[in-house]
């Protein structure tokens, strides 16, 4: 029987970590993810987990210690946000390329500067090419569910990649919601025993992790990472379905919301998806054929599946909570539009940047997007392709 609790996103993440009980956790506190480690450190102090908690002097060291501990053969987790993720940067790539399935909770927060502590996706979107699997969560429940699944996904023998589980800073990390927890034994059974592929602590089989990799082999190792990401797409679906049988909440690559007969659609990820679905319901009452797609998996990007899901629409707006300065649009837009262009008759596609530095996205803002989509569908005119939804002139 599921236990119903009122938790913040950070409490949910810490609870997932307690139930996963990783062998090593190396972390450094940063707003708004600080609370995860604060709560988890209490679990460690109270002997509720067997985790070796390594309080390091920076996030660069945190991720370095995580990579080392994972190479040694342990199941490893950490958490961070924003500047902390930025400081981990070079080790993010190393974790992925050394194929260490570290699992990290990220409470999304804007990158400086100017200094801002609130939620947007500039931190993890910047890390989209680091080789990590990225799962985005709409609420505390999804953050919890995604973290438990992340262990299975990352550690799968055909994947062996690190996974970041993202949820919006403050909006989710600090808001209390009703959610359901699994029993400790259920989580233990679901994630299973950790099996390291090449544990350094296997002293009978000496080996080297992280040697120099020059012109003769570097390309082959990158090609292997591409293959791992391809497998990850299948594994995410398998694990999501199995989790559904356990928890009653199945997970896919994305969630389709009233898309079947929709003409106008919004593609969005994380907490804004909840607001968007509310708007869809209101518009449906007024007879507007609105739908939404909530992207859960951004890496690997489910291009073919997503294009199929959106193929029946006349016009799509992609909402990005981070911009890619000088590019054709925000990071999600660029991917979605590329995916759509593979269709014989792709829907028209526009981009809006919203919610930077934690700025609220209201239902009326999203209604304006659907109004614009109706116009795009009618006139066929997509300019401006890339615009700001919530900005003063």
């Amino acid at each position: 029987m599921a236990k119903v609790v009122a938790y913040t996103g950070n409490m949910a993440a810490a609870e997932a970590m307690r139930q996963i009980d990783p062998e090593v956790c190396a972390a450094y506190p940063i707003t708004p993810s600080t609370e995860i480690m604060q709560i988890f450190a209490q679990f460690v102090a109270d002997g509720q987990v067997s985790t070796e908690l390594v309080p390091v002097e920076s996030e660069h060291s945190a991720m370095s210690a995580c990579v080392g501990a994972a190479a040694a053969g342990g199941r490893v987790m950490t958490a961070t946000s924003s500047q902390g993720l930025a400081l981990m940067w070079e080790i993010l790539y190393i974790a992925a390329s050394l194929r260490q399935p570290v699992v990290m909770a990220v409470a999304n927060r804007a990158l400086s500067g100017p200094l801002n502590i609130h939620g947007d996706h500039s931190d993890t979107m910047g890390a989209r090419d680091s080789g990590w699997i990225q799962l985005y969560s709409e609420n505390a429940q999804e953050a919890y569910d995604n973290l438990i699944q992340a262990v299975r996904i990352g550690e799968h023998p055909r994947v062996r990649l690190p996974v970041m589980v993202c949820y919006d800073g403050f909006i989710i990390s600090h808001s209390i919601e009703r959610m359901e927890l699994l029993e400790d034994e259920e989580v233990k059974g679901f994630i299973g025993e950790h099996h390291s592929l090449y544990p350094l602590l296997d002293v009978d089989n000496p080996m080297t992790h992280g040697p120099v990799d020059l012109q003769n082999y570097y390309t082959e190792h990158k090609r292997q990472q591409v293959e791992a990401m391809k497998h990850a797409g299948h594994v995410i679906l398998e694990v999501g379905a199995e989790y559904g049988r356990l928890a009653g909440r199945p997970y896919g690559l994305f969630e389709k919301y009233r898309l079947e007969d929709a003409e106008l659609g919004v593609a969005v990820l994380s907490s804004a998806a909840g607001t968007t679905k509310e708007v869809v319901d209101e518009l449906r009452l007024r007879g507007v054929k609105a739908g939404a797609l909530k992207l859960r998996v951004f890496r690997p990007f489910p291009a073919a599946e997503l294009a199929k899901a959106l193929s029946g629409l006349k016009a799509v707006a992609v909402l990005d909570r981070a911009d890619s300065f000088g590019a054709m649009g925000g990071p999600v837009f660029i991917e979605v539009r590329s995916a759509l262009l593979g269709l014989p008759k792709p829907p028209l596609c526009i981009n809006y940047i919203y919610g930077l530095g934690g700025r609220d996205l209201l239902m009326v803002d999203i209604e304006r997007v659907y109004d614009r989509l109706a116009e795009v569908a009618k006139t066929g005119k997509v300019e401006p392709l890339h615009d700001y939804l919530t900005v003063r002139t």
Partner: protein
Amino acid sequence: MSEELKGWTEIPIGGVILEAGSSHEYNTGGWRTFRPILDREKCTDCMICWWYCPDTCILVAEGKILGFDLDHCKGCGICAEVCPPKITAITMIEETEAEHLYGMVGIYEGKK
């Protein structure tokens, strides 16, 4: 590289090397700009250079320094630096000059 290069499906993931001591197969001697030259007449076989060499390139047999493993010596000069000031049996000279004078042998057999 003389060995058969393998494809991405044939090698362990993550760049892991699954055998010990494989660095021996990678000849780093080509990185050398300066070559250590041993003056056997001055050398007292105190073994300080053998102790300090970061690449285990000091060749020793029966308590005697024989010279240097030039396939792996990167020419860092630590051996010359730690050779006691009163002895100075090791000097670093430019690799091109060393090749001209001694070929690929790193032992100076005393004054000629």
